[in-house]
């Protein structure tokens, strides 16, 4: 894995109709760290992930990954540059087995095009064996070793999340965008997830993590960014952010008003 590049957002803005989902966001994600992105519902967290991964295009502003401009690239090109993501709704590839799901993730590295299928069948077989081995190893690591040949859509919810993470990891990403990976997981699964994320960080993967589970995010992340109404209202080390009045206001303001009424 090559040295992780830094991701930089400069004044990124996205509107849906008259609603500003993301408003002039400028943040830099330092390499080899886990950055948590939190904020109340509708703060623009998921939109931000969609913008970075190319599923939406910003109305203005720019997104740089190392020295590459991501702003006008389509999602598959961004993925090939080494930015991988998971979805809020676990999205297994229906009709493919668990191991095949992961092997598709290996696609960027083990890539046999139509020409090579016709021209080099033997090397393709080798490739297939190698990719099956790697995929099998990943499944073990993510606790899915026994389910390799199961139809992916038949997995229970928690396992689907791990499959999704295994698939994203298979791409050997430099950066991983995780959209609410802990949503719907029980305590044990959440701890397993945290351990896997730490392991990925040790391997030098830059991680951006969006989640509602505040203790989970603060326990795991090196750095936390807080958004509200499409803007970044605080960023820094978890302890500093935790004490920030603006953050407390964003999270607790509504409740205090409710209590006063």
């Amino acid at each position, binding site marked *: 894995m090559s040295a992780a590049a830094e991701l930089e957002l400069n004044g990124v803005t996205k509107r849906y109709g008259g609603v500003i989902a993301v408003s002039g966001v400028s943040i830099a994600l330092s390499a080899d760290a886990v950055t948590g992105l939190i904020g109340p519902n509708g703060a623009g967290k998921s939109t931000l992930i969609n913008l970075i991964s190319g599923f939406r295009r910003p109305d203005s502003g720019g997104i740089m990954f190392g020295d590459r401009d991501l702003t006008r690239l389509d999602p*598959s090109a961004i*993925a090939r540059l080494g930015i991988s993501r998971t979805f809020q709704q676990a999205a297994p590839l229906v*009709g493919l087995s668990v191991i095949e799901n992961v092997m598709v993730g290996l696609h960027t590295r083990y890539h046999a095009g139509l020409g090579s299928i016709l021209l080099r069948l033997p090397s393709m077989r080798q490739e*297939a064996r190698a990719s099956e081995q790697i995929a099998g190893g990943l499944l073990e690591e993510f606790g899915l070793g026994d389910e390799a040949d199961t139809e992916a859509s038949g997995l229970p919810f928690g396992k689907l999340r791990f499959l999704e993470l295994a698939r*994203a990891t298979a791409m050997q990403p430099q950066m991983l965008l995780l959209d609410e990976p802990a949503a719907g997981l029980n305590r044990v699964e959440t701890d397993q997830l945290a351990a896997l994320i730490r392991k990925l960080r040790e391997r030098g993967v830059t991680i951006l993590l969006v989640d509602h589970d505040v203790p989970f995010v603060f326990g795991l992340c090196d750095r936390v960014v807080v958004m509200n109404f499409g803007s970044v209202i605080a960023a820094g080390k978890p302890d500093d952010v935790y004490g920030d009045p603006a953050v407390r206001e964003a999270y607790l303001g509504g409740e205090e008003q409710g209590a006063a009424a």
Partner: protein
Amino acid sequence: MTLIIAIGVATGCVYSLVAVGYSLIYRTTGVVNFAQGSYVMAGGFSTYWFYEIAGLPYPVAILCGVGVATMLGLALWTVVVLPLWRQRSPSYVVLLETIVFGAIVGTSALLLLGPLPQTLPPWLPGFALEFGGNRIDGQYVVVVVATVLLMLAFSAVLRFTSLGRSMRACAASRDVAQLLGISPERIGAIAFTATAALGGLGGAMITPAQFTSADIGLSFGVFGFVAAVLGGFGSLPGALVGGLLLGVINAFVGRYISSSYQTVLAFGLLLVLLTLRPQGLVGKDWEEA
């Protein structure tokens, strides 16, 4: 009787190849491509041109003929479908454009090569099978064997290669496929090209057993589509079963009733079957093939 079945099965094989085209393109790109039948015409008719008029050796002429059909598929994708796809045009617009494209191909063939039906020599001259006292033209055997081999090759590519996995990934979810670094546009180009080659080869194979003319694209397009839906849209074995069934029924109707009733019966059958079994005769997914 044996002969009618042979004709039906061979024609049905070509319906199957067209049906696979419909299914693969629909599953990977979401497009229903009604130009699928025009590849059969283009493959057969341009092989005729390369052989009889340009005077190329027969195998070379066949390759060139299939090449023309393949290029048509690539052109349809690149020039017509892809720009619409990028703008996220509604599917009825894309559907209409593929019908228009097929009509243009048919009309061009009419203008370039005339309205007369043409035929070609058999691939294996002198080869025939004795079956139940009947002599079955070797070309029918060629069509059947080649179709089976093509189908096997196609499902092997889908099942066991990384390209096949990418195609199935695209069929399952284009969003997820993209985030895994697969370009749906590239997969679309491959699907349109490969299925055009399949249709073109079907046309080049069936022409020696029957004939080809500028207007057969439409009927192969319609019957191929019916075969795909009959078998279960998207299913590879379904395409084969649907195509064979339709081919045999058509052959019997054409022989014992009247060829003008073929369409009526095919559509009648389709209506009845879809009421009873909306998912078609065979399974649901070609990834389970």
